[in-house]
């Protein structure tokens, strides 16, 4: 077996830090077997329980596709009891086909998500630990445009890093942002300012995402002014890839939006609700193992030398007030002449920290 799988399993279990006797569910798909079994063994060594729950796809498969809506909207007692009593969960996406749910109508997928959201609130609000990640399958590699061995190298490079060292480094950077009021992002066709006054950031290391490696904030909702152009990478969301997104903010609100491809989807998303036109998140990618864009937000938003801004819902646990049904992270490259300023002082230039 690839020795990196064992190391990966240890990192994942570190993320949820199980206590003896905890019931930890492992949610995955059959191709994840080598990692699932290692995670189960690692949980065993730490005296926690492993409740392995396999499905054929992460969207609920046949059930979501054919069940009467009333069953989808009202999960059964056994499932609700399980979610409520799980101390922690480790979700390992191990897709056989990343488009396996493409034929399931959006209203069915949405109904399932909505039904599962409430019972998952203790996880979504960080009261209980969880982590989401990938196992490198051929399908995931195909989505990333890589042969499987190259994708494995990329994935393990992003997750098998010294997380304690990176956390310390990110915490030092975050102190500067915590103290600052105004952030200015300057880059290709981009000059945007917004306020972090009164907001505290969060460092993502050994937490709910693996790979982690970002510092993130919910900016003051009415503060964004200026323009940002996402010319380097497509903005990926809900299986759409929108090219050349350009957004202009006034008083925190997007007043002009355009794209060079799939503009219709962008404009539709912005019209989802009132909160969809405001920023929910400002994130700074810090993972040195991620040096290229993969069209997969989990990885892309952690890319060192980039920042990302999410339109839509903010994070209440770090002071965010914006509410929306969407949360769309868009990644902006800064290693091509871009910079970040805090209260007028340049703190990062061309992706290199100047602190």
């Amino acid at each position, binding site marked *: 077996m690839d020795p990196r799988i064992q190391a990966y399993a240890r990192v994942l279990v570190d993320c949820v830090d199980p206590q003896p*006797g905890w*019931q930890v569910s492992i949610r995955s798909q*059959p191709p994840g*077997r080598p990692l*699932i*079994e*290692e995670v*189960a*063994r690692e*949980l*065993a*060594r730490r*005296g926690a*329980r*492993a*409740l*392995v*729950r*396999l*499905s*054929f796809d992460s969207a609920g*498969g*046949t*059930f979501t596709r*054919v*069940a*009467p809506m*009333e*069953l989808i909207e009202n999960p*059964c*007692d*056994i*499932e609700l*009891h*399980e979610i409520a*009593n*799980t101390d922690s969960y480790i979700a390992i996406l191990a897709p056989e086909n990343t488009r396996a749910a493409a034929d399931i109508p959006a209203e069915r997928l949405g109904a399932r998500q909505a039904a599962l959201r409430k019972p998952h609130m203790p996880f979504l609000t960080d009261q209980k630990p969880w982590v989401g990640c990938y196992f490198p399958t051929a399908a995931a590699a195909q989505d990333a445009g890589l042969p499987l061995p190259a994708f494995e190298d990329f994935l393990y490079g992003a997750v098998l890093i010294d997380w304690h060292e990176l956390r310390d480094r990110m915490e030092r950077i975050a102190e500067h942002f915590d103290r600052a009021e105004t952030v200015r992002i300057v880059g290709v066709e981009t000059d945007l300012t917004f306020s972090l006054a009164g907001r505290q950031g969060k460092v993502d290391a050994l937490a709910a995402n693996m790979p982690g490696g970002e510092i993130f904030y919910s900016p003051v909702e009415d503060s964004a002014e200026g323009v940002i152009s996402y010319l380097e990478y497509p903005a990926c969301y809900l299986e759409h890839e929108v090219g050349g997104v350009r957004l202009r903010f006034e008083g925190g609100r997007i007043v002009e939006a355009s794209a060079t491809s799939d503009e219709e989807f962008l404009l539709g998303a912005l019209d989802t609700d009132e909160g969809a036109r405001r920023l929910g998140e400002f994130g700074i990618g810090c993972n040195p193992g991620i040096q290229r864009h993969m069209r997969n937000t989990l990885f892309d938003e952690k890319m060192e030398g980039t920042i990302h801004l999410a339109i839509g819902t903010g994070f209440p646990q770090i002071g965010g007030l914006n509410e929306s049904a969407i949360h769309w992270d868009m990644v902006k490259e800064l290693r091509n002449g871009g910079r970040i300023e805090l209260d007028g002082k340049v703190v990062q230039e061309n992706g290199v920290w100047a602190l």
Partner: protein
Amino acid sequence: MGAVDPRVEQYARLLVDRSLDVQPGWQVLIRTQPAARPVIEELVRLITERRAYPVVRMNFSLFPVDEAWASEAPLELVGEIAPIDRYASDHMDARITVEAPDNTRGVAAMSAERRAAMRKATAVFLRRTMNDEIPWVGCYFPTNALAQEAGMPLPAFEDFFYGACLRDWDAESESMHRLLARFDAADSVRIVGDETDLTMSLRGRTGEVDDGHVNLPGGEFFFSPVEDSADGTILFGVPTEFNSAPVTGIRLTFRNGRVEQASADQGEDELLAALDMDDGARFIGELGIGCNEGITKPMRNTLYDEKMAGTIHIAVGASYPKVGGKNVSSLHWDIVKDLRRGGRIELDGEVVQENGTWLI
């Protein structure tokens, strides 16, 4: 994936309609393994069609135990079912177990102590179905591992498997009930065959028919004989196994219901260990009569072998309280005796089956 074998849908329908008769609002726990995917998808479809919830508990090993975890977890945790899984066990309205192993020797590397702990946790999950508190069915989905165990290529095994499972169960039920009535009315059963002459009493006991409900394939009727009544000797020619070790050529001699002499051509140590497991392990818990014409030769799997038409089986160990059995044991080991060549069954002295053919 290509077109689904139409037999898969018929099989799923049999499980949902006949074995369980799923009702709206039920939570139907499906305990299975990934290789069963075609039938799992059909089960989910058919259960939701009946406005009931499929609760799929799929893992590489059978719920509620994960073998990878159990191989290294603290033994006291392994032996006790997880509270979440206990809740599911206590609240499910029906249970389907579809075994679809990719290796029938999955647990072989585990120590006996750990295996026992896993069995203990699993027994808690099985409790409500073993007591018939809720509808349940245990069955297989044909995989290469099962075909290999049966010594066949997969397509031939599938033909055998569906031939044994997809039968006219109403007709099978009727003919088995007719035979059962004769056994119910009799006091004494005598099994005669190769190196075999064994009698036991069914006085006061009534049997039960397995006609496609709790097992698929079904096709037997069975009794728990009077515990102290077995006398004589029986030689079992059909190979069996205990704790994954093959045991063949078992000879048992009974006196007043108890095994007094036991030997085996192969696996005698396992046989004796099983019989010494506890006080009840040397008594007969079950006499079953195989009636499934779709099963014509031993497949090294008790679930099919015990249903083979023209055979009987005796289980040493636990009997079934629901048919009046009183024997208690942790063991329930079905061992099959072929009567198709020179064997016969007598009821109160009357020959009712000879060379596997019914005379009644």
